[in-house]
């Protein structure tokens, strides 16, 4: 067997090589498991590794030998963020409060991955219950950025990003609530796709903010992210928010009646806090898009400036309800008190990290009598205005571009020590897509493309052209 060049490997290449018999699913899986063994102690990308992945890979090889029909991801090693249920495996949300909890069923995305023949390598580290933008809020220690280990890989899907960027997996699932896949993708040189709200079933995903959450793939290329998306997307009777009329796979039928694709650039982007390099880079990227033949048009999204305040009201409100279930009675950790109420108080007090406690209490505040109209309802109203802004803009353009992040990957242990708001501003360009439920993709270097609902095809087409795939 010749050494597999993992750095250059994509899903497409791996599939072709396996079909040609250049290497087997077992060999490719073994290469990744060896890399995990060598690099994970430093990167801390995985919280759990499935050593029996080899058995799943052998099964794929057996099927291939027998000439059986193979799925779209047959033999493709994938990492799973530790917020998605894989039957029989520990799932903790990187929190102490769920330590020891074993998933009693497969999430729908996991069933789909199994059916497609994907090889699951393990569960990846993240910010506790996906709350954070650096990976540093994990109860099991921070993940390091494989491109520069003194820096954060971004978050909350820190381990999934580090796994793919460090060649500890070929692709990975993360989850997106306000940029938790796109921001780490930008920090690690990957592609991150936030699907349309409802495109992917969330059955078996630990809920953070139910009106924003989507399971989302990482890829080294747009085609890789697209391949995983096409496997996991689709309606699911077990998730009532999944969209019923979704066509999968989505065909590329971008704006056929028109000659040109029109790309909108918001004139009201909040650029004040941006690194000057980010602004200069974004201008160059707009020029590149123009050279690629796209028509560039200025648009306005007047309520964009409220995105982070809206996000950090609705998210804590929903999170405070979603996380109420972790009370030491039915799952994970239990701290004993004098009575049941004290059991709850101690379990939550000791089981949750600082950021989680902060957001739950903030959620209790914005929902409390006397404040909910000024905060929660007002945020819901502004969310509605933002939806109208985007709908209006998409009447004129086929896609909208912005930077993905306001700055480059930062040093470990720096931002987390300062005000929480500074970390919240990491989501400044990514949160709007979650607020309005639209699909968005982050592509290197720091470009985000947003499309109307269920138009992932637009993202794939522009993304591929932009990256010359």
């Amino acid at each position, binding site marked *: 067997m010749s050494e597999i060049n993992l750095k250059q490997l994509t899903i497409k290449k791996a599939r072709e090589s396996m079909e040609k018999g250049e290497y087997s699913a077992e060999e490719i899986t073994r290469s990744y498991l060896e890399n995990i063994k060598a690099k994970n102690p430093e990167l801390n990308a995985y919280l759990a590794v499935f050593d029996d992945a080899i058995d799943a890979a052998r099964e794929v090889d057996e099927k291939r030998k027998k000439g059986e029909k193979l799925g779209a991801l047959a033999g493709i090693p994938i990492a799973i963020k530790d917020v998605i249920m894989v039957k*029989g495996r520990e799932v903790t949300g990187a929190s102490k409060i769920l330590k*020891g*909890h*074993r998933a*009693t*069923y497969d999430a729908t995305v996991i069933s789909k991955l199994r059916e497609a023949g994907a090889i699951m390598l393990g569960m990846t580290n993240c910010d506790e219950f996906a709350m954070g933008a650096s990976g540093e809020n994990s109860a099991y220690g921070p993940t390091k950025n494989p491109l520069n280990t003194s820096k954060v890989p971004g978050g909350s899907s820190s381990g999934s990003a580090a796994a793919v960027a460090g060649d500890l997996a070929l692709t990975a699932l993360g989850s997106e609530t306000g940029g938790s896949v796109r921001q780490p993708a930008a920090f690690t040189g990957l592609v991150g796709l936030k699907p349309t709200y409802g495109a992917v079933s969330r059955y078996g995903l630990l809920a953070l903010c139910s009106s924003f959450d989507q399971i989302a793939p990482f890829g080294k290329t747009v085609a890789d992210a697209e391949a995983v998306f096409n496997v996991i997307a689709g309606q699911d*009777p077990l998730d*009532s928010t999944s969209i019923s009329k979704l066509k999968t796979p989505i065909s590329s039928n971008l704006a056929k009646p028109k000659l040109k694709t029109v790309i909108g650039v918001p004139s009201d982007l909040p650029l004040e806090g941006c690194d000057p390099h980010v602004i200069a880079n974004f201008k160059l990227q707009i020029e590149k898009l123009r050279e690629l033949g796209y028509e560039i048009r200025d648009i306005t999204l007047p*309520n964009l400036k*409220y995105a*982070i*305040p*809206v996000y*950090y*009201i609705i998210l804590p409100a929903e999170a*405070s309800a979603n996380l*109420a279930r972790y*009370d*030491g*009675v*039915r*799952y*994970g950790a*239990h701290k004993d008190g004098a*009575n*049941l*109420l*004290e*059991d*709850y*108080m*101690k379990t*939550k*007090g000791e089981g949750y990290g*600082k950021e989680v*406690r*902060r957001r*739950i*209490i*903030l*959620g*209790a*505040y*914005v929902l*409390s009598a006397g404040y909910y*109209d*000024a*905060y929660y*309802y*007002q*945020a*819901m*109203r*502004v969310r*509605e*205005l933002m939806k109208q802004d985007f709908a209006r803009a998409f009447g004129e353009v086929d896609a909208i571009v912005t930077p993905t992040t306001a700055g480059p990957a930062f040093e470990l242990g720096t931002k987390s020590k300062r*005000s*929480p*708001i500074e970390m*919240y501003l990491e989501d400044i360009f990514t949160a709007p897509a979650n607020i309005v439920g639209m699909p968005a993709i982050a592509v290197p270097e720091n470009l985000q493309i947003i499309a109307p609902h269920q138009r992932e095809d637009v993202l794939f087409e522009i993304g591929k052209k932009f990256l010359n795939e």
Partner: protein
Amino acid sequence: MLSIEELRNLASLARIAMPDNELEELRSQLDEIIGFVGEVQKADTTSLKLRGASTSSVGEVALPELRNVFRDDGVPHETGKFTRDIVANFPDSKDGYLRVKKILEK
């Protein structure tokens, strides 16, 4: 500014025992965050048409077609299929039942 007493009350509503030495730090952080997110109050939402009483506070929202999201009533799987795995996750159980402390005290 939030008082320590208000903060204690919120924490207790959320069933979180907060260590005393963290309350002061949390109070100043929450104040800063609440001030920051309070920016939403500057947004002009008068263009949103108000609707009937139940949803009026949020304003006009294009509701999707109403549909039943519940499965048909029936037997979804054989009894006991998941019981053992679920009970294994309980911090405390006896004979396949979840065990909790007595709720009503004398």
